[in-house]
């Protein structure tokens, strides 16, 4: 059970973040938009990955569908941004259902690897779609209003986190966790695993697609390489795992920390920043397999023994 003060702190932080555009510089706001959108991706990944225990390396596909749905609606049909987002979300939900039904029958590594190919396949399809501008891409109407994009991104992250908070306290979440811990046992206790897994993927696809749509309108340009950017998968998985999969605030904290570190490093050498992500996940799995959230929960009693114990539990 989450302690009350955790929620109070979270609300205060969220409100404080809402006022950043009033005081922050342009670069700070732009960094904020990126960080908030990435946190949303990590948090949506958390729904199936953290609670349901199904590691997907293909959620960037929903980001891409959201991106293209918004872009196609706005450029080809002159529809307003809001409608564009809805189109993107619907595309992503259909995609999640179509992908989820066959491959969520697969377990563990089979599921994970089956999702590895998704991003490439989608990129190939959209590169050949005239309505999506083939491999040239689409240019969206320009709107210079970073404050609006910032508040939208913040609102989206808040909505996504509230959803995860609800999941963590609901019957639905109990079902997902039961599937994560032992799918066969969950089934004999009455959990409809297929329904839960597919709906979790669809739920994740909604927030991921909206993040894609917001990013598309903000950056005003969409092409296959940016919409189906496979490094997005790397980042959302790592941020969530680093922060604490299956927790409510872990993925958000994890992505804020990593986005900041990444920003600092990327200013120096961009390859080094990418390398860092690799090292983070390797070290996180070894030393803190339950994520930053579990480390923080230890509070003052935390010492190096915590990390040693984690290794003891899992080494040969």
């Amino acid at each position: 059970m989450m302690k009350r003060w955790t929620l109070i702190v979270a609300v205060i932080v969220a409100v404080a973040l809402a006022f950043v555009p009033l005081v922050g510089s342009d670069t700070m706001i732009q960094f904020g938009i990126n960080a908030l959108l990435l946190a949303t991706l990590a948090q949506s990944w958390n729904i199936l990955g953290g609670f349901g225990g199904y590691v997907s390396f293909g959620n960037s596909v929903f980001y891409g569908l959201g991106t293209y749905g918004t872009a196609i609606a706005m450029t080809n049909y002159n529809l307003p941004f809001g409608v564009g987002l809805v189109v993107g979300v619907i595309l992503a939900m259909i995609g999640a259902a179509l992908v989820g039904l066959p491959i969520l029958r697969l377990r563990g590594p089979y599921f994970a690897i089956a999702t590895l190919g998704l991003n490439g396949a989608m990129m190939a399809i959209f590169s050949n779609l005239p309505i999506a501008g083939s491999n040239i891409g689409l240019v969206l109407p320009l709107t210079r209003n970073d404050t609006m994009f910032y508040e939208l991104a913040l609102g989206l992250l808040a909505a996504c986190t509230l959803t995860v908070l609800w999941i963590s306290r609901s019957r639905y979440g109990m079902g997902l966790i039961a599937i994560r811990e032992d799918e066969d046992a969950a089934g004999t206790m009455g959990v409809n695993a297929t329904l839960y897994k597919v709906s979790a993927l669809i739920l994740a696809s909604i927030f991921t697609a909206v993040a894609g749509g917001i990013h598309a309108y903000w950056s005003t340009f969409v092409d296959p390489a940016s919409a189906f950017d496979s490094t997005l998968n790397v980042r959302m998985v790592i941020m969530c795992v680093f922060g604490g999969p299956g927790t409510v605030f872990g993925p958000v904290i994890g992505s804020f920390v990593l986005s900041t570190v990444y920003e600092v490093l990327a200013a120096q050498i961009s390859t080094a920043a990418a390398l860092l992500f690799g090292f983070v996940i390797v070290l996180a799995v070894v030393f803190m397999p339950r994520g930053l959230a579990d480390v923080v929960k230890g509070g003052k009693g935390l010492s190096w023994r915590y990390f040693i114990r984690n290794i003891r539990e899992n080494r040969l």
Partner: protein
Amino acid sequence: MTAAAATTPAPRTVIEARALTKRFQGLVSVDAVSFAIAENETLGVIGPNGAGKTTLVNMISGTLTPTEGEVIFEGRNINDVPAFRRAHLGIARTFQVMKPFHGMTVLENVAVGALFGRDGGEKSMAKARETAREWLEFTGLGRKIDLGADSLGGPDRKRLEFAKALAMKPRLLLLDEVMAGLNPVEVDEVVELIKTIRGQGMAMLVIEHVVKAIRSLSDRVMVLHHGQKIADDDPATVLEDPRVIEAYLGKRRT
């Protein structure tokens, strides 16, 4: 758990197996076994290791599909019903190899049973926790509800398995060796627990090696040997049957 004892004059059949057979790549694990259990009735199942007892339970709970034969639950063929729907119908089981949900507390483990059990379970988290608490008190885990499930020792895990199944409010309870690995005092405690829930309308199938427990719990005892049913009668008759002693009990004595 406060449900009044059923007052129907003629006990209804809850579960019926008709010539259930399971083959694994040519090896016959269960060979045309038929039996029926009525409301308020407890069927004890004994047999040497590898006799097909757990396979039988797996076919009834839906973990395995039978190669041949039928599983009839309350008059309906449920061969094609997936495991989670069988749980909704009212079939609950324990696992011989215990399967607690590690990332959950003891209370949450049992709450899953209450949330997803018979008729799709309880929709309210608060009520499910309440139900879970009651069953944990009943099985003697009342003081350990907030511990992590993986911190429990062997006997407590058995109790947890039992509480999880009971929280599903089953019509049919399948107990797969809940007493294995317990010392005699603990066995007596579990026997008392099972006796308490008997006569509340539930049908029970109890797989057990502890002959004393089987004798005092079962209304009838079925013996499996090499996947075949070699006896099905009241406990006294079965446990004196020379074929049973030969196949099962005799080997134990030597």
